[in-house]
């Protein structure tokens, strides 16, 4: 939540909404897209004229309206069913874990069943339910129990902070370098146009660590911990107070979450001597959820073929241009229906980014039409299997840990120079 900007109290003269993204048309002439980007890579939308982008915007608006107008009892039944299945699965799995230490022929069946069930339940809760409910996809049902303003999820990051950083920042400024921190979360270099520094040399390690601890890194990220550490000495009293309040909220949430998974449920299992095994089951389920969600999410914007955008390229951006950026800045995962549900339909990342408030069960039906629209406009629709997409991101993380290849300059020398610079800085730092 941001507060209202200071504006003159007396009559404003603007007749239209101040946000150009509310309209497909623009009052100001829109610039033609440059053929090449700063890094020298081709711009995938260079061939589109402003008029074509306008047409594309109208087409997508019409598609959105068609689906939104047809929302009904079947959709409502879908999300209620997913919620019901998830809750029964979680209850059942936790019940099984009460006996997780019971051995049958040297093997603990309840542990395996309970851990697998709990992992799936947590994934469903975070993705197909939590992520999508908090996007407001189900607000239209006017059910106060399934509403973006009321939902809290099974994750370290408090809903309010996640909604700000995800719905507001990431979805509005998708893939804009310097505006969308989701591009590498501030710890990874996932695009050639991102500046290289020594820190990224070890990014394969950061990447794996991030995946394992994903719920906590999301919490730190939503809290804007990195920004705080970088400029805490320059923050105003008000900013500091806000940070402290947010931090306390995160700690309170983590405490509740940890108490549940690592204290209360294991304690209940102590009756059957299964406290330790329940604890390990909860740890494993959280790890599985972390790695799975991370794997799905890195496929959304990091695989090769997905475009990033310069800060200035979005000045005065119209609704059509925004749609265009969402399509070019996202990538899908192909797979079975079960796979789509387990990814929270983020496997339809392109469709989700075009219409973030559309019920997730409808993405599959519009996907062929979006693909067709993009093909007609000669735009690349990035998609592939989970293994292909995730694998390409892992490989990219390795590749981009090194500086970009530049003609006439060895990468080894660039790294040496950076190390020397860092040493000098440290010496200077010590002296003063």
């Amino acid at each position, binding site marked *: *939540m*941001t*507060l*209202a*900007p200071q*504006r003159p*109290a007396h009559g*404003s003269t*603007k*007749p*239209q*909404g*101040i*946000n150009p*993204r*509310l309209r497909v048309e623009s009052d100001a002439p829109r610039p033609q897209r440059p053929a090449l980007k700063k890094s020298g890579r081709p711009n995938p939308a260079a061939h589109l004229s402003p008029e074509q982008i306008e047409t594309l915007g109208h087409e997508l*608006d019409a598609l959105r309206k068609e689906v*939104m107008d047809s*929302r*009904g*009892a*079947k*959709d*409502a039944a879908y999300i209620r069913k997913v919620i*019901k299945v998830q*809750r*029964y699965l979680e*209850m059942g799995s936790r019940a099984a874990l009460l006996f997780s230490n019971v051995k049958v022929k040297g093997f603990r069946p309840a542990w395996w069943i309970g851990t697998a069930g709990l992992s799936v339940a947590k994934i469903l809760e975070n993705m197909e339910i939590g992520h999508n409910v908090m*996007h*407001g996809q189900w*607000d*239209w*049902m*006017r*059910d106060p*129990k399934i*509403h*973006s*303003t009321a939902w*809290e*999820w*099974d994750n370290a990051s408090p809903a309010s902070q996640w*909604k*700000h950083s995800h*719905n*507001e920042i990431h*979805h*509005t400024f998708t893939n804009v370098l310097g505006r969308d921190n989701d591009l590498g979360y501030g710890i990874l270099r996932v695009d050639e146009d991102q500046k290289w520094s020594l820190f990224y040399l070890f990014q394969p390690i950061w990447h794996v660590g991030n995946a394992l601890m994903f719920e906590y890194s999301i919490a730190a990220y939503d809290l804007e911990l990195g920004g705080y550490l970088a400029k805490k000495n320059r923050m105003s009293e008000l900013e500091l107070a806000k940070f402290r309040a947010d931090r306390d909220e995160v700690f309170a*949430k983590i405490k*509740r*979450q940890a*108490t*549940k998974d690592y*204290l*209360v*449920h294991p304690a209940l299992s102590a009756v059957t001597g299964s406290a330790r095994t329940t604890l390990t089951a909860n740890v494993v389920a959280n790890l599985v959820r972390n790695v799975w969600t991370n794997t799905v999410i890195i496929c959304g914007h990091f695989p090769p073929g997905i475009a990033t955008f310069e800060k200035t390229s979005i000045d005065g951006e119209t*609704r059509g241009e*925004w749609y265009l950026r969402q399509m070019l800045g996202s990538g899908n995962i192909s797979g079975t229906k079960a796979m789509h549900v387990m990814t929270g339909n983020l496997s339809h990342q392109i469709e989700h980014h075009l219409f*973030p*408030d559309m019920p997730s069960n409808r993405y599959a039906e519009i996907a062929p039409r979006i693909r067709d629209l993009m093909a007609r406009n000669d735009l690349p629709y990035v998609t592939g299997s989970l293994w292909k997409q995730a694998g390409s991101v892992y490989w990219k993380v390795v590749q981009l840990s090194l500086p970009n290849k530049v003609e006439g300059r060895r990468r080894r020398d660039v790294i040496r120079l950076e190390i020397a610079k860092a040493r000098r800085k440290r010496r200077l730092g010590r002296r003063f």
Partner: protein
Amino acid sequence: MRGARKVAEALATPLVPDDYLDLLDPMRAGADLRGRIVEVRPETADAATVVIRPGRGWQGHVPGQYIRIGVDIDGVRHWRAYSLTHRADGSAAAGIPAGCIAITTKAIPDGKVSHHLVRRATPGTLVMLDQATGDFTLPTPAPAKVLFLTAGSGITPVMGMLRNHLPELADVAHVHCAPSERDVIFHRELAGHHDAGRLALSLNLDDVHGVLDLARLDTLVPDWRERETWLCGPTALLDAAEKHWANAGLPERLHVERFRPSVVEPGEGGTVTFARSSRVVDADGATAILDAGEDAGVLMPSGCRMGICFGCVVPMRSGAIRDLRTGEVTVHESDEPLPVQTCVNAVAGSCELDL
């Protein structure tokens, strides 16, 4: 007990224990009040009685009171108020099984909920309920002489009173208005009371007598001025009757039940009221409520300013808004606050926000 509750909360977080218990028994004591439709019984061609078994948290009612009922229609929850017509002591009456509650509704033109209840609702459906409320009730002891003046489905709260209190009422005159004889809800039951001398029923049928002219009361119920009168019907009748009784110098004799206090007519632009910051702003039909509020210095929550992040959502208490992207109008129809996105909606006529 409090300790057990704390443990249950710790087990269920980030949900609450009720979320799990609701799966197992949505009608249990302590749950949000819900009910299950037992039967939908036609009364006339366009009116039906909906018999509902309420959850165990049901606290009973005083005859004449109404409940709010929340039904999901095409996936969207709608709340409406309807008068209760069953016996308050829980005994069976008029075909309503013991322990069940009943409302009677008439499908009105453009009435989404009434149409749904009369034509599409099916037994077994779970509905949301509120406890009974309202002060359209008979005093104790009951007055010696009573006039019930009802029109259309306005009969329902009075039927609630008759089914519970008729034996205690010594002298009852009842004037009921309906478009035609076959539109009279509870006709047989009322006629039975009339024939048995328990009340004096006069029907005013539009197709026979024309719309009721209150001057006709002098003929139908010559002593109407001496009677405590309970009135329920469409707004036009209520307004006319209030004037009639006031002119007679007897406004305190008239007890009125109003169900549709105002009908929202969506307009282009209009007045936005920010209730908690007590600010009223005029905005045109092209200005987002968010912008109008910020310009007036209201502390507005905001986010993407293009309708995708839901960071600007605030509850709307009443009124109508128009989506700047699609032109779609959303009208607030119940007394349940409706969360709306201020960044992509302009006021359509007027609206009041909880901000």
